[in-house]
């Protein structure tokens, strides 16, 4: 995209996020639907829908950061950025189902799907009516959605995939495409989590400036300052890692991009969670209430750290040199 055009789109997402952010954990189904409809009207699914894509992965990653910065129930990742990318990769070989809005399917524990036959869920499925599953061999199938699956993250919609539901084969990704797909999914999820951590840390810094105890602002206590400085460095580390990995997807071979994406997810799994935990500590008791947004951020980041790939998965893989090297 042109620089000015990107700024406009980024601004659109920011305005959208400010308008549709939820203020508490008591979520209205009608508000969820309305927000998703409003997101759909921004037309962002086009960004990666065409070949070649209109937006770079780095641009999409920045938009995902923006979306992550507010507590939102909308599915930007599943329905707007991930499923369209999958269909784009499949290209003309895909047999798209006209009139449907797919999201993506993950294993029941939210990792990348395992071999066929293992249970699946539809992830980040607000507004979706199908789920695309990428099997370890690259085969892509489309499944129907069952009832909602309650989970720790109150914002992100998850639905079951009925075990008996007939799965239609949509197409098949080649090895490089599969690598690209995994890297892309890891980077965009990491970006959303880093956006959440950055925003929550910023809110806790503002709170530290305003809240007074012992006749002074709590942000003047060095113990609090060092917590917030550490949280800031963690957010910066996650930001550098995700943006670099996104750039690799735009400019480097898929294998290199996958390594960078795994690094980014491993960093963010640790740093986003630590940063949010620090932010909560700085808020004190107020952040422990149902009404406060803190737990919405915490829930999202916590479940996000186990989504697609856990820290243990990633560190074990990254511990050894890439075989190709």
């Amino acid at each position: 995209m042109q620089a000015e055009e990107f700024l406009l789109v980024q601004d659109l997402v920011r305005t959208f996020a400010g308008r549709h952010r939820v203020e508490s954990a008591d979520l209205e189904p009608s508000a969820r639907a309305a927000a998703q409809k409003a997101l759909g009207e921004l037309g962002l699914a086009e960004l990666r829908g065409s070949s070649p894509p209109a937006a770079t992965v780095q641009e999409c990653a920045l938009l995902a950061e923006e979306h992550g910065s507010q507590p939102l129930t909308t599915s930007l990742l599943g329905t707007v950025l991930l499923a369209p990318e999958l269909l784009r990769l499949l290209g003309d070989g895909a047999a798209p189902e006209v009139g449907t809005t797919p999201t993506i399917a993950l294993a029941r524990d939210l990792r990348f799907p395992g071999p066929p036959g293992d249970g699946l869920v539809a992830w980040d499925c607000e507004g979706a009516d199908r789920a695309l599953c990428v099997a370890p061999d690259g085969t892509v199938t489309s499944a129907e959605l069952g009832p909602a699956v309650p989970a720790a993250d109150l914002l992100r919609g998850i639905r079951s995939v009925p075990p008996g539901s007939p799965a239609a084969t949509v197409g098949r990704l080649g090895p490089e495409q599969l690598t690209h797909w995994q890297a892309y999914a890891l980077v965009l999820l990491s970006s959303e989590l880093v956006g959440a951590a950055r925003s929550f840390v910023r809110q806790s810094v503002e709170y530290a400036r305003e809240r007074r105890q012992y006749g002074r602002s709590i942000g003047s206590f060095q113990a609090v300052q060092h917590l917030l400085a550490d949280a800031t460095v963690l957010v910066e580390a996650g930001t550098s890692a995700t943006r670099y990995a996104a750039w690799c997807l735009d400019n480097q071979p898929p294998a290199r991009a996958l390594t960078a994406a795994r690094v980014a997810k491993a960093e963010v799994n640790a740093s986003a969670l630590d940063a949010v935990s620090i932010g909560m500590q700085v808020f004190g008791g107020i952040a422990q209430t149902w009404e406060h947004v803190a737990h919405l951020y915490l829930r999202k980041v916590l479940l996000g750290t186990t989504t697609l790939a856990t820290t243990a998965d990633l560190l074990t893989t990254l511990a050894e040199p890439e075989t190709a090297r």
Partner: protein
Amino acid sequence: MNDTPLDFGDPADLDDLRRRFRAWLAEHPLPERGADEPLPTFLHRWHRQLHSGGWVGLDVPQVYGGQGLSTLHQVAISDELGAGAAPGIPRIGYLAHALMEFASEEQRQRWLPRMLAGEDVWCQGFSEPGAGSDLAGMSTTATREGDHYIVNGQKLWTSYAQYSGLCLLLARTDRSAPAHTSISAFALPLDRAGVTVRPLRAANGDDEFCELFLDDVRIEESERIGAEGNGWPLAMTTVSYERNALDTGHISKYGLLVERLRRAARDRRDELPDGLRSEIGRCFVDYEVLVAHAARRTAERLAGRTAGPESSYDKLLMTRTEQRLYETALRVFPEELFGDGGNGAEGGELFGEYLYSRAASVYGGTSQIQRNIIAKQVLGLPSAR
């Protein structure tokens, strides 16, 4: 503030520079170190050799003996040296920046070409026994007497002073003014009467830092860098460059050790416990994040966003990477805890490097001081008083 896409890639001419440097290096390999040759003397020879090939001061303008290229070019050379396990260019980058920014035209021409060529070796005389983190509390004085100053005081931790000809010295020129406007910077020749240099032995056995005693030392006005009372901003520029991820050749050295650990994880898959294997994975993550972070800071710099107090992020991330890396390396190679490192300091070479990694959270401003800087200067949190 808007975050916009950045180009993390190398500019096209860097590839060419790297190729030319590798070719040069193949013809001018690292010299043999003499049996009794102290490391700094050996490194000094290496510095001169690199300079003779035109590989020092790439980012310094040609009038001052450099090549007039960009920081990126110098970083690429550091990178190549680190990746080839060769010692880096002596760390003069931040001193050169301080001189370029604060010295007079005449002084820049006098000192910079000789600094780059290795004809003058400089050290940094900032810290004192009573002024470490609280650098502004220094008590060394430079009292004006007509066209010169008389300096009295003591400096501490002055790295490699025993091998240096000149010292970038901070001293108080005004005892009544507030600290930050009363400190001045000087270029002090260490062979001047009244200067005593006493080396201190570091925990890893190396002779790195020194004590510097200054008794009625005469410094000429022409040896003062910048205006009187302008030493503080010079000092801050120096340390902020020193913290910057870009200006140090460490990163690619970490990369070599990380790859060594990853090969061990592969070759000793059944022997190393899972916990240690994931710790190796974590070291690789730290290293790659640091590479990504340095690339982002370079790209931001090229996009016109300059290095400010954010260089404290770099320092903390480098410290995290280095300290975890050496801790893990000793657990993967426990045999390094035994033997003699060669300087009578007990323990293998890796153990010596491990000990040095402990200093990463102290030199260039401690980790606590970096956090103070982030809290106050980046986050704008209020002061205690």
